[in-house]
């Protein structure tokens, strides 16, 4: 019987070790590729989710804008404003004020989730609501501010002024969000800006339309101030 050459055995061992090393290297490479693919997948999933969120936000903004400009009836514009605040923002308690140019005061017009009884008429610059309208900028309470019901002394959590070219038409004061809504989102901030810009213009156009027929002179004053 022929004796095996120890050198052959050594060669075979070396070949096996080399094969094992290459296999390990290949496995390491594949694991790296897999991790890279997983990371890439996660990035794409995140971007997809972000795109979906953007799409949803745009849909909300489009619907809000479309509803505001879908009618030229002042009552229907007011109804659209309320619907947007309830259904898109998710407010449970809010008050819509209208600006009376004669007395130059903000008068509570519609209260959702609350009674208007006892709510004061406000001068421009008076209180949080009057100040927001006077400045013509959306006001949002610092985070952690307590929600409540409207009262003479209660501050809202959001005030959306309704002004066109600096002429006040009214304001939306939100006092409480729906229980299931944890807080204000980026979309809510965009909706407030949209309401500030478009709700006021929709109201103005509706009042202009109404003015074509017949309206008391005092209601034309804010329109005249803008159009002149």
């Amino acid at each position: 019987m022929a004796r095996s050459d120890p050198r052959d055995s050594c060669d075979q061992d070396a070949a096996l070790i080399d094969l094992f090393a290459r296999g390990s290297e290949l496995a390491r490479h594949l694991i790296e590729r897999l991790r890279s693919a997983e990371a890439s997948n996660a990035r794409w999933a995140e971007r997809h989710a972000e795109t979906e969120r953007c799409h949803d936000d745009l849909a909300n903004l489009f619907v809000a804008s479309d509803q505001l400009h879908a009618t030229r009836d002042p009552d229907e514009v007011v109804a659209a404003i309320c619907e947007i605040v309830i259904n898109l923002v998710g407010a449970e308690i809010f008050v819509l004020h209208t600006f009376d140019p004669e007395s130059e005061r903000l008068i509570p017009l519609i209260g959702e989730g609350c009674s208007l009884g006892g709510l004061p008429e406000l001068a421009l610059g008076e209180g949080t609501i009057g100040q927001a309208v006077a400045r013509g900028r959306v006001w949002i309470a610092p985070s952690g501010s307590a929600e409540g019901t409207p009262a003479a002394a209660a501050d809202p959590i959001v005030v959306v002024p309704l002004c066109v070219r600096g002429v006040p038409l009214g304001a939306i004061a939100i006092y409480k969000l729906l229980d299931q809504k944890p807080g204000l989102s980026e979309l809510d901030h965009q909706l407030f800006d949209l309401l500030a810009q478009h709700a006021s213009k929709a109201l103005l156009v509706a009042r202009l339309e109404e003015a074509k027929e017949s309206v008391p002179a005092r209601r034309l004053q804010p329109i005249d101030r803008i159009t002149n």
Partner: protein
Amino acid sequence: MADQRILIVEDSPTMRQLLVFALKRMKGVQIVEAQDGMDGLRKVTSDHFDLVFVDINMPVMDGLKLISLIRSDSNLAEMPICVITTEGANDDRERAIALGANEYLTKPIQANKVLSIARDLLKLPV
């Protein structure tokens, strides 16, 4: 495959438009709108629908009444229904589920949640 037909029974034009926007992202669906419970009942009994979204608070006939009428009709007993509620409180939701609704959405609604519920109730792949 034939289009899936979805009925939205909701008095708020804003909500209807938002739901239509969300549901249109699914391919092969036909969407019909009804503006109150009575209108919804007329449509649901005169045509075939694979899924109905029903608001609870509506004029003429509310969503709870509509659900009970749908479930009392043997031809519609199995039709999936998703209710839309405003309140975070569970009362309306629980009453709707007890009457036979399959799912619920709370306002303000999110499009991805609407799609997820619709796909689930229509048994469509995600």
